[in-house]
């Protein structure tokens, strides 16, 4: 069985994983939701105007490969641009509802093994060529083709492939697997039931459809710089990693949208730089703000939307080697950590505490897990002694681009230090983190602070990414847990899937595979007068931040 993670592979997947790669919502169990921010009454829609959207360097502010889906390793981080230029087949709406966009619907048949997607009729790309099932098929072939293989982006669909064995996962789909069944319908035949297929499409390359004529005409390099899609905007200019200017697409299917005439996406060197730009009136929107000190101030000057989180931070323990091959050492970690005071002191109680991989913004949310080992310093001290944790130094790693992750590791070190555990912190750059996970066949690393979970736990950097036996970035190798997680993604009905996730969470707690701490979610800030889903009203995050449907965003500073 392959790892069914649908988040874009490659560099960004890991970066994304530090914060989240899933989304929010579905309205399952509301739970203890944090405040949604300070957005009050929003002005009525108004057409026209231009805005500048700031993108943080190290994540969405980097696009070194341009925007050709099968070659863009960092596409996961750059969904703002994809939704603007390509639109999407489906949008993820409020409460996790799948909304029609360029596709109008889908249906499952054959025991959830066949998926048929119906496309919108009469749509044209911005170059005037028709958007139809043939165009989608052409794009999907590229998404499974040699370019995608080179970039490591071939979607992990469970379909028949042109190769078998280990090569299958990066091979093109077999002719029988994907079929154009009408001018506006396309059908995917899966080899195993996957009721979460459409959910898993989000944040993957098949969601974004480019104009086949433009791809053929421009060639891959030029197309990446000047992509042609059927989305609400078209590219005016594009300097990689720096500035992208898009303007209203006059051929957009959903007239009179988009509201805005022009959007300038600018890379800013971090939260502070972006915030300073907004204070100086040089930007109207910034997403993914996570620096607590700035969050404390931002609400006084700007609209601030706090999304309900979907991806809890967990402490990965490597069960493949000492000291955490010892169950007592793992239990000691559970008992040694009291996260509530950390959350209060460091993060101002912005995020909810959790004991599982589900978040308040996602499906199957269940923050409490029966039998979860809570804070117990006396027990921790005893276990630390018994397992010899006091005689060793634990290396606790995380990625260096996330201030939240770094603060969390610092805080944990402070707490554990008092109980006699010695911790060495390693803040890795992305490739260093990859090396650390891989070194010595995955046996060198000891503990990592990462996120596990997603708005749908089977999608993105979900629970499987961190807990499945054969996932390269998992420290757990337990066939029973694998079984539970695979069963959980088969049905289409969420209510049938949740019990499996509950069981999995209980099982993880029982074996002390890794404690969960809190569900982080960054905030989106915007100036008064900006209105749009994901900016002023909740929208599930697809990768860290929601993919904003820019056609719906307007700027009405006068409020009339």
């Amino acid at each position, binding site marked *: 069985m392959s790892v069914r993670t649908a988040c874009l*592979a*490659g560099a960004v*997947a890991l970066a994304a994983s530090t914060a989240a790669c899933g989304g929010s919502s579905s309205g399952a169990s509301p739970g203890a939701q944090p405040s949604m921010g300070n957005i009050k009454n929003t002005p009525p829609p108004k057409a026209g105007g231009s805005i500048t959207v700031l993108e943080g360097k190290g994540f969405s502010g980097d696009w070194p490969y341009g925007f050709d889906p099968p070659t863009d*390793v960092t596409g996961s981080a750059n969904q703002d641009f994809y939704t603007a230029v390509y639109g999407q087949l489906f949008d993820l709406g409020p409460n996790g509802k799948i909304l029609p966009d360029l596709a109008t619907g889908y249906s499952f048949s054959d025991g959830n093994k066949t998926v048929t997607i119906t496309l919108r009729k009469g749509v044209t790309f911005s170059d005037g060529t028709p958007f139809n099932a043939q165009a989608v098929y052409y794009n999907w072939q590229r998404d499974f083709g040699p370019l995608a293989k080179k970039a*490591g982006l071939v979607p992990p669909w469970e379909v028949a492939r042109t190769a078998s064995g280990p090569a299958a996962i990066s091979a093109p789909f077999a002719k029988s697997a994907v079929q154009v069944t009408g001018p506006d319908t396309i059908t995917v035949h899966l080899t195993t039931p996957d009721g979460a297929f459409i959910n898993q499409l989000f944040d993957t390359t098949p969601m974004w459809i480019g104009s086949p004529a433009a791809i053929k005409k421009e060639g891959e390099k030029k197309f990446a710089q000047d992509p042609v899609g059927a989305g609400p905007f078209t590219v005016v200019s594009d300097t990689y990693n720096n500035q992208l200017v898009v303007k209203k697409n006059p051929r957009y299917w959903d007239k009179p949208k988009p509201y805005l005439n022009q959007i300038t996406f600018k890379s800013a060197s971090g939260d502070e*730089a972006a915030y300073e730009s907004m204070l*100086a*009136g*040089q930007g109207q929107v910034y997403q993914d703000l996570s620096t607590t000190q700035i969050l404390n101030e931002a609400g006084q000057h700007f609209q601030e939307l706090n999304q309900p989180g979907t991806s809890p931070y967990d402490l990965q323990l490597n069960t493949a080697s000492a000291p955490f091959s010892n169950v007592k050492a793992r239990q000691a970690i559970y008992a040694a950590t009291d996260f509530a005071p950390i959350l209060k002191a460091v993060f101002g109680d912005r995020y909810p505490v959790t004991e599982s991989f589900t978040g308040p913004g996602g499906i199957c949310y269940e923050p409490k897990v029966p039998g979860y080992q809570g804070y117990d310093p006396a027990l921790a001290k005893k276990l630390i002694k018994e397992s010899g944790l006091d005689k060793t130094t634990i290396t606790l790693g995380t990625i260096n681009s996330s201030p939240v992750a770094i603060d969390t590791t610092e805080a944990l070190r402070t707490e554990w230090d008092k109980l006699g555990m010695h911790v060495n912190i390693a803040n890795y750059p992305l490739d260093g983190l990859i090396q650390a996970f891989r070194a010595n066949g995955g046996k060198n690393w000891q503990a990592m602070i990462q996120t596990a979970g997603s708005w749908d736990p089977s999608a993105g950097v979900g629970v499987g990414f961190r807990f499945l036996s054969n996932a*390269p970035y998992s420290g757990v190798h337990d066939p029973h847990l694998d079984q539970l997680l695979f069963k959980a993604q088969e049905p289409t009905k969420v209510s049938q899937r949740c019990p499996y996730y509950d069981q999995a969470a209980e099982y993880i707690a029982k074996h002390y595979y890794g404690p969960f701490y809190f569900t982080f979610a960054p905030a989106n800030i915007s100036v008064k007068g900006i209105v749009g889903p994901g900016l002023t009203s909740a929208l599930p995050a697809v990768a860290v931040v929601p993919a904003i449907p820019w056609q719906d965003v307007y700027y009405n500073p006068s409020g009339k």
Partner: protein
Amino acid sequence: MTTRGLAGSPAWKLVGRRLVAAVIVLWGVTFLTYAVMSALPNDTAAGLLGLKASPAQIAALNRRLGLNQPFWVRYWHWFVNLLHGNLGTTLEGQSVNHELATYLPVTMELLAYALVVSLVLAVGLAVLAARKPNGAADRFSLALSMLGLSAAPYAFAIFIIVVFGVQLGWFPVQSNALGTGGVGTFFREATLPAASLGFGLFAIYARVLRGDLVEQMQREDYITTARAKGLAPWRVLVRHALRNSMFTLITVVGLNLGALIGAAAIIETLFSAPGIGQELLNSISNHDVPMVEGIVLVFAIITVAGNLLADLLYAVLDPRIRYGSSSS
């Protein structure tokens, strides 16, 4: 390295010899860069492919990038390409020549702006200071240049962003639009980063020039003569002393050019300016050897040219120093 075959005047001989030396130095820099970058442990392919790559994929990419070959083979390939004017391909598949053409102009414009403004201000202040040593202007110039010499550019940049960008709103906080738009855009976007780069330069220039001017005004005979002839002090200072001191200043400017890439790297990153300095930092952290080589080569050429100029000026200014004294 004999250049006896070179005909012509001694000055031309000297230039010829220094040019040969410069080429050798440039070659040494490229070799050293390649050697250092290759000797250090890295995991380029794994880093590029990201989380989900299999060992087979990594090996394949290593082969494609030629990383499985020994270092001298790769260096030789690179060097042969260089002789054909081709600087190779970045890890992301772009031509290095193209990347340099894209990012270098922004940095060069920024550096030129910083250089010109700091030179003009330094000359003005130094002349004012030298007119009356130990006067108010002199004290001010000494204090300001001491501050400029001692302020870390990264800290200085943070403060001027807050004051002139956020508080006063005179300039943009981030300079993404550098390299696009017209003159107005350039001065709006470039002023703060250029000031961050230029403050230290200004301090050095002002110090050097002020010292040189004061020394000349007090020690040199021709100045005394000019004074005796009844020339106005201003005229003596500007027409005679300043003209002579300019040689020293040019020498200092030349010597500092190469070191500017380091400053540009930090300042461009701070301001999100799309220049080559920022690319340099990215390439180092991605272990993109061809890209690093390309950037290093450009700045090595600038440094060597600056040094060459400085050396020649030395020779002109101070006849006691003999070059390539193979006879002794």
